[in-house]
């Protein structure tokens, strides 16, 4: 039996107790007479710069409109947005990953944008990201960019070990070849560990592309049953677990640690790293040795991670039409092109992807990433956009971490993950 509680009445009673005693407010109240939009984001310097550029252009094209950019730390971003939504004080617009938008969409915290979009608006975007922002055919956010993974490598160390790097997607190393190369690097020395994977700090969903590479699935085709306990699932868990048991990765790079893999790559602790395109500026600045980027290893299939973010309009917005205008402006072709170039991210408009885009920093390496975006499986996308994915993610991290660091068997891990799937991902 459901009982909806009128939170407002309780709130008013409580606040009434104290309301009379407080006088005045020091500081800046947010009410303004001119039209103002607040846009909450997280991001490094280059991303924030990219956002500010677009905002400046929008403001000059729309006099009397001000867009305030709220930059928040990523670690507490969703805590802030959710708290503000609970208090009916959410910003007009907020950035959100594809894995989290489902939660906001299904709770109607992000508004339905259909009425603000032209027909076939979605056709301008790559199918994977457009399906990610839609729930039952209704768009709740607009895709802004994507990110994906590839293999960074230390040129000097690989040369010393006589390891040749694949020059095209077809020549990508098989899993076996990848492990062989890793072992070669390990025996050669020069770095403490052969490689590491960047899946810390809540990014455990990146483990999934290995599952798809091995022909496995988390959920069935129609997303109504778990498939993690099948042979392919257990084997993938066992394979990634073996990286730790065989000393191929630093023990501190498990899914629940706070380790930053790119630091280890920059200071030579690891010879290769599986990481995303946004790391290029950092590596460029900090890495002393020569380095490059190549394709991911592959098994029966090639697969990659769906990274990136979209932008949604919150239900608390007092000016949804204006907010929608801004989002559309943000993701139009010209602005998207300059944004991804500034921030070293990947575009999601088919027009840009087809025409090609030349990045100012490390263009050849970025080409590898762009190619890899084509290998993101559609089923992976439909799995991670489940409204409860945000709740499931930390639980999957708990189980995989136990497998990697505490010797939990692959079978047991798969079973435990299945229990979480059944509790969280399969209910209506």
């Amino acid at each position, binding site marked *: 039996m459901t009982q909806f*509680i009128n939170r407002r009445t309780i709130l008013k009673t409580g606040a009434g107790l104290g309301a009379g005693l407080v006088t005045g407010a020091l500081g800046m109240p947010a009410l303004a007479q001119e039209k103002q939009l607040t846009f909450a984001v997280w991001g490094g310097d280059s991303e924030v710069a990219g956002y500010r550029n677009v905002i400046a252009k929008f403001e000059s094209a729309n006099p009397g409109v001000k867009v305030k950019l709220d930059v928040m730390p990523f670690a507490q971003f969703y805590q802030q947005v959710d708290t503000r939504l609970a208090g009916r004080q959410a910003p007009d617009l907020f950035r959100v990953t594809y894995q989290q938008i489902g939660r906001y969409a299904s709770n109607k915290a992000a508004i339905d944008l259909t009425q603000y979009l032209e027909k076939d608006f979605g056709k301008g975007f790559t199918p994977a990201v457009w399906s990610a922002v839609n729930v039952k055919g209704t768009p709740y956010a607009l895709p802004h960019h994507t990110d994906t993974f590839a293999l960074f490598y230390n040129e000097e160390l690989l040369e010393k070990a006589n390891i040749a790097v694949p020059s095209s997607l077809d020549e990508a190393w098989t899993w076996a070849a990848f492990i062989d190369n890793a072992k070669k690097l390990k025996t050669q020395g020069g770095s403490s560990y052969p490689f590491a994977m960047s899946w810390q700090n809540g990014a455990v969903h990146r483990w999934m592309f290995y599952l798809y590479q091995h022909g496995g699935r988390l959920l069935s085709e129609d997303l109504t049953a778990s498939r993690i306990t099948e042979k392919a699932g257990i084997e993938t868990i066992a394979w990634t677990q073996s990286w730790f048991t065989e000393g191929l990765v630093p023990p501190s790079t498990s899914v629940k640690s706070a380790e930053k893999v790119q630091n*280890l790559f920059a200071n030579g*602790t690891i010879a290769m790293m599986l990481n995303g395109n946004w790391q290029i500026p950092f590596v460029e600045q900090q890495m002393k040795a020569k380095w490059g980027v190549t394709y991911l290893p592959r098994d029966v299939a090639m697969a990659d991670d769906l990274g990136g973010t979209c932008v949604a309009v919150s239900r608390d917005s007092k000016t949804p039409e204006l907010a929608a205008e801004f989002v559309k402006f943000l993701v139009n072709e010209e602005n998207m092109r300059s944004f991804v170039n500034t921030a070293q991210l990947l575009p999601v408009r088919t027009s840009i992807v087809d025409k090609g885009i030349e990045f100012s920093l490390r263009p050849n390496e970025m080409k590898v990433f762009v190619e890899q975006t084509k290998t993101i499986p559609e089923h992976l996308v439909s799995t991670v956009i489940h409204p409860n994915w945000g709740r499931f993610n*930390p639980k999957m991290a708990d189980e995989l971490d136990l497998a990697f660091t505490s010797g939990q068997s692959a079978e047991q891990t798969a079973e435990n993950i299945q229990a979480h799937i059944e509790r969280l991902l399969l209910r209506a």
Partner: protein
Amino acid sequence: MNETATSRFSGWWASFRPRLTPYLFIAPNLVLFSVFIFFPLLYAAFISVHEWSLIDEPFYIGAENYTRLLTDYQFWQAMKNTVIYSVATVPTSLAIGLLLAVGLNRDLYARTFLRSIYFLPVVVSSVATAIIAAWLFNDHYGVINALLKLVGIQPVAWLSTTSWALPSIIITTLWTRVGFCMVVYLAALQSISPTYYEAASIDGATRLQQFRHVTWPLLRPTTFLLLILNVIHSFQVFDLIFVMTGGGPGFSTTMIVQYIYQSAFATSEMGYASAMGIVLFLLILLFTLLQWRVNKRTEEFV
């Protein structure tokens, strides 16, 4: 106006006012507490019997959150870790603090300077402490391992092994707490009248005996104060875990407040988090009440 009535009234008012005074004096605090602490606490209790993801409406589920706690492996692990952490840090920081206080109570060269150094870590914010500690203890580029290598000891995988992760957190905590205990004990030691010691030494007591029979009993109220404060503080450890280990590896450093935070904001289960918060609150309250009773017997609180 009737003269006798006014004088009776002012008489009544004169005798009533002193009675009103204490209430007036505590009123500002009480009002602030009510609005900003007790009301939210009641609200949390209210939410603890609901399911709430923050972005939708709360949904009544009765005592389900509490019964779920009973069988939640991660909850019990978090409780166990928090208790171990508390037991490891509280008596230790008290003991070290006391030793430091005794040592720095003597007339030593640069005594004030040394005391300031020991107190400095207390002043560093938890955010800064966590950031520095995470770096110092890092397996690969951390300074502690570099120092160990210098003296020929094998580097330790501090934050990535289940056996060393919790000790790293404990060591960092001790760094931030011993200074506080030291300062409080120092003050207490200085307020012990020398006549007690003179009397004891005349009776032929050794220094150790003096400590056991004079110093330690007189320090009991301080110990009580520090015990309560440090236990409360240790049960609420959060920033350190969040930044250094994220609760891992495995569940070896998952602490109760960190699990509460994760339930509230990562897995969107505010009702469950509130239930845990209420349970934690009641436990600490119980502990304090017990300590209060024990202490009342040995010390008179007016």
